[in-house]
Protein backbone atom coordinates (compact mmCIF):
# COMPACT_ATOMS: atom_id res chain seq x y z
CA UNK A 1 0.00 0.00 0.00
CA UNK A 2 2.83 2.36 0.89
CA UNK A 3 4.50 1.47 -2.40
CA UNK A 4 1.42 2.57 -4.33
CA UNK A 5 1.31 5.73 -2.29
CA UNK A 6 4.97 6.27 -3.03
CA UNK A 7 4.43 5.84 -6.78
CA UNK A 8 1.52 8.27 -6.68
CA UNK A 9 3.68 10.83 -4.91
CA UNK A 10 6.52 10.25 -7.36
CA UNK A 11 4.12 10.61 -10.28
CA UNK A 12 2.95 13.95 -8.95
CA UNK A 13 6.57 15.01 -8.56
CA UNK A 14 7.23 13.88 -12.13
CA UNK A 15 4.40 15.96 -13.58
CA UNK A 16 5.64 18.94 -11.59
CA UNK A 17 9.10 18.46 -13.12
CA UNK A 18 10.74 17.85 -9.75
CA UNK A 19 11.86 14.22 -9.94
CA UNK A 20 15.46 13.10 -10.03
CA UNK A 21 16.76 10.78 -12.75
CA UNK A 22 16.70 7.91 -10.26
CA UNK A 23 13.05 8.57 -9.40
CA UNK A 24 12.23 8.73 -13.10
CA UNK A 25 13.86 5.32 -13.55
CA UNK A 26 11.62 3.95 -10.79
CA UNK A 27 8.56 5.35 -12.56
CA UNK A 28 9.72 3.93 -15.88
CA UNK A 29 10.08 0.49 -14.36
CA UNK A 30 6.76 0.74 -12.54
CA UNK A 31 4.67 1.87 -15.50
CA UNK A 32 6.44 -0.61 -17.74
CA UNK A 33 4.91 -3.45 -15.72
CA UNK A 34 1.46 -1.93 -15.49
CA UNK A 35 -1.35 -3.39 -17.56
CA UNK A 36 -3.83 -0.74 -16.59
CA UNK A 37 -4.06 1.99 -19.18
CA UNK A 38 -3.78 5.58 -18.13
CA UNK A 39 -1.98 8.83 -18.95
CA UNK A 40 1.25 7.81 -17.24
CA UNK A 41 1.31 4.32 -18.74
CA UNK A 42 0.69 5.83 -22.19
CA UNK A 43 3.42 8.44 -21.80
CA UNK A 44 6.06 6.05 -20.44
CA UNK A 45 5.16 3.59 -23.17
CA UNK A 46 5.70 6.32 -25.73
CA UNK A 47 9.05 7.31 -24.19
CA UNK A 48 10.14 3.67 -24.18
CA UNK A 49 9.36 3.45 -27.88
CA UNK A 50 11.24 6.66 -28.59
CA UNK A 51 14.37 5.25 -26.90
CA UNK A 52 14.35 2.25 -29.22
CA UNK A 53 14.69 4.35 -32.39
CA UNK A 54 18.05 3.60 -33.98
CA UNK A 55 20.24 5.09 -36.66
CA UNK A 56 20.23 2.30 -39.22
CA UNK A 57 22.20 3.97 -41.99
CA UNK A 58 25.77 2.81 -42.45
CA UNK A 59 28.30 5.11 -40.82
CA UNK A 60 30.82 6.20 -43.42
CA UNK A 61 33.97 8.15 -42.84
CA UNK A 62 33.97 11.48 -44.64
CA UNK A 63 36.22 11.58 -47.69
CA UNK A 64 38.86 14.29 -47.53
CA UNK A 65 38.17 16.52 -50.51
CA UNK A 66 40.67 19.10 -51.70
CA UNK A 67 39.49 22.21 -53.43
CA UNK A 68 40.26 22.60 -57.14
CA UNK A 69 42.76 25.34 -56.36
CA UNK A 70 44.63 23.19 -53.83
CA UNK A 71 44.84 20.35 -56.35
CA UNK A 72 46.10 22.69 -59.07
CA UNK A 73 48.71 24.28 -56.82
CA UNK A 74 49.94 20.88 -55.69
CA UNK A 75 50.24 19.76 -59.34
CA UNK A 76 52.23 22.88 -60.26
CA UNK A 77 54.51 22.44 -57.22
CA UNK A 78 55.15 18.80 -58.11
CA UNK A 79 55.95 19.66 -61.75
CA UNK A 80 58.37 22.41 -60.68
CA UNK A 81 60.08 20.04 -58.28
CA UNK A 82 60.58 17.43 -61.02
CA UNK A 83 61.92 20.06 -63.46
CA UNK A 84 64.37 21.49 -60.90
CA UNK A 85 65.55 18.02 -59.97
CA UNK A 86 66.12 17.11 -63.61
CA UNK A 87 68.02 20.37 -64.28
CA UNK A 88 70.29 19.80 -61.27
CA UNK A 89 70.96 16.19 -62.31
CA UNK A 90 71.89 17.19 -65.88
CA UNK A 91 74.17 19.99 -64.61
CA UNK A 92 75.98 17.61 -62.31
CA UNK A 93 76.58 15.16 -65.14
CA UNK A 94 77.95 17.73 -67.61
CA UNK A 95 79.97 19.97 -65.21
CA UNK A 96 83.81 20.02 -65.91
CA UNK A 97 85.76 18.01 -63.33
CA UNK A 98 88.81 19.30 -61.32
CA UNK A 99 90.45 15.89 -61.40
CA UNK A 100 93.86 15.53 -63.19
CA UNK A 101 94.98 12.12 -64.32
CA UNK A 102 98.72 11.50 -64.86
CA UNK A 103 99.67 8.24 -66.48
CA UNK A 104 103.48 8.70 -66.39
CA UNK A 105 104.88 7.70 -62.90
CA UNK A 106 108.03 9.88 -63.30
CA UNK A 107 106.03 12.93 -64.17
CA UNK A 108 103.71 12.25 -61.24
CA UNK A 109 106.72 11.99 -58.88
CA UNK A 110 108.16 15.24 -60.18
CA UNK A 111 104.88 17.11 -59.79
CA UNK A 112 104.47 15.72 -56.26
CA UNK A 113 108.01 16.84 -55.30
CA UNK A 114 107.39 20.32 -56.64
CA UNK A 115 104.15 20.48 -54.71
CA UNK A 116 105.89 19.45 -51.47
CA UNK A 117 108.70 21.96 -52.11
CA UNK A 118 106.15 24.71 -52.56
CA UNK A 119 104.43 23.76 -49.32
CA UNK A 120 107.79 23.54 -47.54
CA UNK A 121 108.72 27.06 -48.63
CA UNK A 122 105.44 28.40 -47.34
CA UNK A 123 105.89 26.65 -43.99
CA UNK A 124 109.46 28.06 -43.65
CA UNK A 125 108.21 31.55 -44.32
CA UNK A 126 105.53 31.11 -41.68
CA UNK A 127 108.04 29.81 -39.15
CA UNK A 128 110.34 32.82 -39.76
CA UNK A 129 107.44 35.22 -39.29
CA UNK A 130 106.56 33.62 -35.95
CA UNK A 131 110.20 33.78 -34.77
CA UNK A 132 110.38 37.50 -35.68
CA UNK A 133 107.25 38.19 -33.68
CA UNK A 134 108.52 36.26 -30.65
CA UNK A 135 111.79 38.23 -30.64
CA UNK A 136 109.90 41.50 -30.95
CA UNK A 137 107.66 40.34 -28.10
CA UNK A 138 110.68 39.44 -25.93
CA UNK A 139 112.27 42.86 -26.47
CA UNK A 140 109.11 44.68 -25.43
CA UNK A 141 108.86 42.48 -22.38
CA UNK A 142 112.53 42.86 -21.46
CA UNK A 143 112.67 46.60 -21.94
CA UNK A 144 109.20 47.44 -20.72
CA UNK A 145 110.50 49.16 -17.53
CA UNK A 146 112.94 51.40 -19.38
Amino acid sequence: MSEVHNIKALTEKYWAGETTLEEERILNAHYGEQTEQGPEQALFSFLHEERSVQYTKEVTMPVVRRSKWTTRLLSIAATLLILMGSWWGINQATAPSNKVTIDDPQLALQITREAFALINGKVDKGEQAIMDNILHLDKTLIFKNL
Partner: protein
Amino acid sequence: MLKAVLPIKDKLYRYALRIVGNKMSAEDVVQEVLIKVWQKKDQLEKIENKEAWCMTVTRNLALDKLRRKKVILDDVDDHRGISDDNMSPYRALQSDDTMKIIRDAIQELPEAQQQVIHLRDVEGYTYKEIADITGFSSDKVKVYLHRARITLRHKLTSIYA
Protein backbone atom coordinates in the same frame (compact mmCIF):
# COMPACT_ATOMS: atom_id res chain seq x y z
CA MET B 1 37.44 9.87 -33.86
CA LEU B 2 34.67 7.35 -34.52
CA LYS B 3 35.08 6.07 -30.96
CA ALA B 4 33.56 9.32 -29.74
CA VAL B 5 30.59 9.24 -32.10
CA LEU B 6 29.60 5.63 -32.75
CA PRO B 7 28.27 4.83 -29.26
CA ILE B 8 26.01 7.87 -29.37
CA LYS B 9 24.94 7.79 -33.01
CA ASP B 10 21.41 6.69 -32.04
CA LYS B 11 21.12 9.55 -29.57
CA LEU B 12 22.30 12.00 -32.22
CA TYR B 13 19.82 10.59 -34.70
CA ARG B 14 16.89 10.70 -32.25
CA TYR B 15 17.70 14.27 -31.28
CA ALA B 16 17.97 15.33 -34.92
CA LEU B 17 14.72 13.50 -35.65
CA ARG B 18 13.00 15.29 -32.77
CA ILE B 19 14.01 18.64 -34.24
CA VAL B 20 13.60 18.10 -38.00
CA GLY B 21 10.82 15.49 -37.72
CA ASN B 22 11.93 13.73 -40.89
CA LYS B 23 13.96 10.54 -41.27
CA MET B 24 16.05 11.54 -44.28
CA SER B 25 16.83 14.99 -42.96
CA ALA B 26 17.79 13.51 -39.58
CA GLU B 27 20.15 11.06 -41.31
CA ASP B 28 21.68 13.95 -43.23
CA VAL B 29 22.20 15.80 -39.96
CA VAL B 30 24.01 12.82 -38.42
CA GLN B 31 26.22 12.60 -41.50
CA GLU B 32 26.98 16.31 -41.24
CA VAL B 33 27.83 15.86 -37.56
CA LEU B 34 30.32 13.15 -38.55
CA ILE B 35 31.96 15.51 -41.03
CA LYS B 36 32.07 18.26 -38.42
CA VAL B 37 33.65 15.92 -35.87
CA TRP B 38 36.14 14.79 -38.52
CA GLN B 39 37.09 18.39 -39.28
CA LYS B 40 37.55 19.16 -35.60
CA LYS B 41 39.29 15.90 -34.73
CA ASP B 42 42.42 17.69 -33.52
CA GLN B 43 40.42 19.81 -31.08
CA LEU B 44 38.21 16.94 -29.95
CA GLU B 45 40.79 15.68 -27.46
CA LYS B 46 40.59 18.96 -25.56
CA ILE B 47 36.79 18.82 -25.26
CA GLU B 48 35.81 17.57 -21.81
CA ASN B 49 32.30 16.30 -22.55
CA LYS B 50 32.46 14.98 -26.11
CA GLU B 51 28.93 13.61 -26.02
CA ALA B 52 27.43 16.96 -25.02
CA TRP B 53 29.53 18.66 -27.70
CA CYS B 54 28.28 16.23 -30.38
CA MET B 55 24.70 16.77 -29.21
CA THR B 56 25.16 20.54 -29.43
CA VAL B 57 26.53 20.21 -32.96
CA THR B 58 23.54 18.02 -33.82
CA ARG B 59 21.15 20.59 -32.37
CA ASN B 60 22.70 23.46 -34.30
CA LEU B 61 22.81 21.59 -37.60
CA ALA B 62 19.26 20.29 -37.18
CA LEU B 63 17.90 23.73 -36.33
CA ASP B 64 19.78 25.18 -39.26
CA LYS B 65 18.30 22.57 -41.58
CA LEU B 66 14.85 23.20 -40.18
CA ARG B 67 15.15 26.92 -40.83
CA ARG B 68 16.64 26.51 -44.32
CA LYS B 69 13.82 24.43 -45.65
CA LYS B 70 10.47 23.32 -44.44
CA VAL B 71 10.89 19.58 -43.99
CA ILE B 72 8.10 17.23 -44.88
CA LEU B 73 7.00 15.09 -42.00
CA ASP B 74 7.05 11.36 -42.58
CA ASP B 75 4.17 9.04 -41.91
CA VAL B 76 3.62 8.43 -38.24
CA ASP B 77 5.58 5.18 -37.86
CA ASP B 78 7.95 5.57 -40.78
CA HIS B 79 10.78 7.04 -38.76
CA ARG B 80 10.41 4.89 -35.67
CA GLY B 81 12.67 2.18 -37.06
CA ILE B 82 10.84 -0.66 -35.29
CA SER B 83 8.36 -3.10 -36.71
CA ASP B 84 5.29 -4.67 -35.11
CA ASP B 85 7.31 -7.86 -34.63
CA ASN B 86 9.58 -6.33 -32.04
CA MET B 87 6.91 -4.21 -30.44
CA SER B 88 7.51 -3.96 -26.71
CA PRO B 89 4.92 -5.16 -24.17
CA TYR B 90 4.73 -1.51 -23.21
CA ARG B 91 3.78 -0.55 -26.74
CA ALA B 92 1.42 -3.45 -27.29
CA LEU B 93 -1.01 -1.98 -24.80
CA GLN B 94 -1.17 1.33 -26.55
CA SER B 95 -3.08 1.99 -29.71
CA ASP B 96 -1.44 3.81 -32.59
CA ASP B 97 -3.90 6.61 -31.96
CA THR B 98 -2.58 7.15 -28.45
CA MET B 99 1.00 7.17 -29.68
CA LYS B 100 0.06 9.65 -32.37
CA ILE B 101 -1.72 11.88 -29.89
CA ILE B 102 1.34 11.97 -27.63
CA ARG B 103 3.69 12.54 -30.58
CA ASP B 104 1.52 15.35 -31.90
CA ALA B 105 1.22 16.83 -28.42
CA ILE B 106 5.02 16.95 -28.12
CA GLN B 107 5.30 18.31 -31.66
CA GLU B 108 2.94 21.13 -30.73
CA LEU B 109 5.08 22.20 -27.78
CA PRO B 110 7.37 25.21 -28.25
CA GLU B 111 10.69 24.11 -29.76
CA ALA B 112 12.69 24.64 -26.56
CA GLN B 113 10.24 22.53 -24.53
CA GLN B 114 10.33 19.77 -27.14
CA GLN B 115 14.10 19.60 -26.93
CA VAL B 116 14.21 19.66 -23.14
CA ILE B 117 11.60 16.95 -22.66
CA HIS B 118 13.34 14.80 -25.29
CA LEU B 119 16.78 15.19 -23.70
CA ARG B 120 15.42 14.49 -20.22
CA ASP B 121 12.72 11.86 -20.70
CA VAL B 122 14.09 9.98 -23.70
CA GLU B 123 17.85 10.36 -23.28
CA GLY B 124 18.01 10.74 -19.50
CA TYR B 125 20.36 13.71 -19.28
CA THR B 126 20.78 15.77 -16.11
CA TYR B 127 19.67 19.40 -16.01
CA LYS B 128 23.30 20.48 -16.20
CA GLU B 129 23.93 18.33 -19.29
CA ILE B 130 20.78 19.64 -20.97
CA ALA B 131 21.90 23.19 -20.19
CA ASP B 132 25.32 22.43 -21.75
CA ILE B 133 23.75 20.95 -24.88
CA THR B 134 21.06 23.55 -25.47
CA GLY B 135 22.75 26.64 -24.10
CA PHE B 136 19.77 27.36 -21.82
CA SER B 137 20.41 28.02 -18.14
CA SER B 138 19.67 25.17 -15.71
CA ASP B 139 16.75 27.17 -14.30
CA LYS B 140 15.26 27.61 -17.76
CA VAL B 141 15.67 23.90 -18.43
CA LYS B 142 13.62 23.15 -15.28
CA VAL B 143 10.96 25.68 -16.28
CA TYR B 144 10.68 24.30 -19.83
CA LEU B 145 10.45 20.73 -18.54
CA HIS B 146 7.79 21.67 -16.02
CA ARG B 147 5.71 23.46 -18.65
CA ALA B 148 6.09 20.63 -21.15
CA ARG B 149 4.98 18.02 -18.64
CA ILE B 150 2.01 20.12 -17.52
CA THR B 151 0.83 20.46 -21.13
CA LEU B 152 1.27 16.73 -21.78
CA ARG B 153 -0.51 15.80 -18.58
CA HIS B 154 -3.42 18.05 -19.48
CA LYS B 155 -3.75 16.47 -22.94
CA LEU B 156 -3.37 12.90 -21.74
CA THR B 157 -5.76 13.34 -18.83
CA SER B 158 -8.42 14.67 -21.17
CA ILE B 159 -8.06 11.53 -23.32
CA TYR B 160 -8.39 9.14 -20.39
CA ALA B 161 -11.05 11.11 -18.51
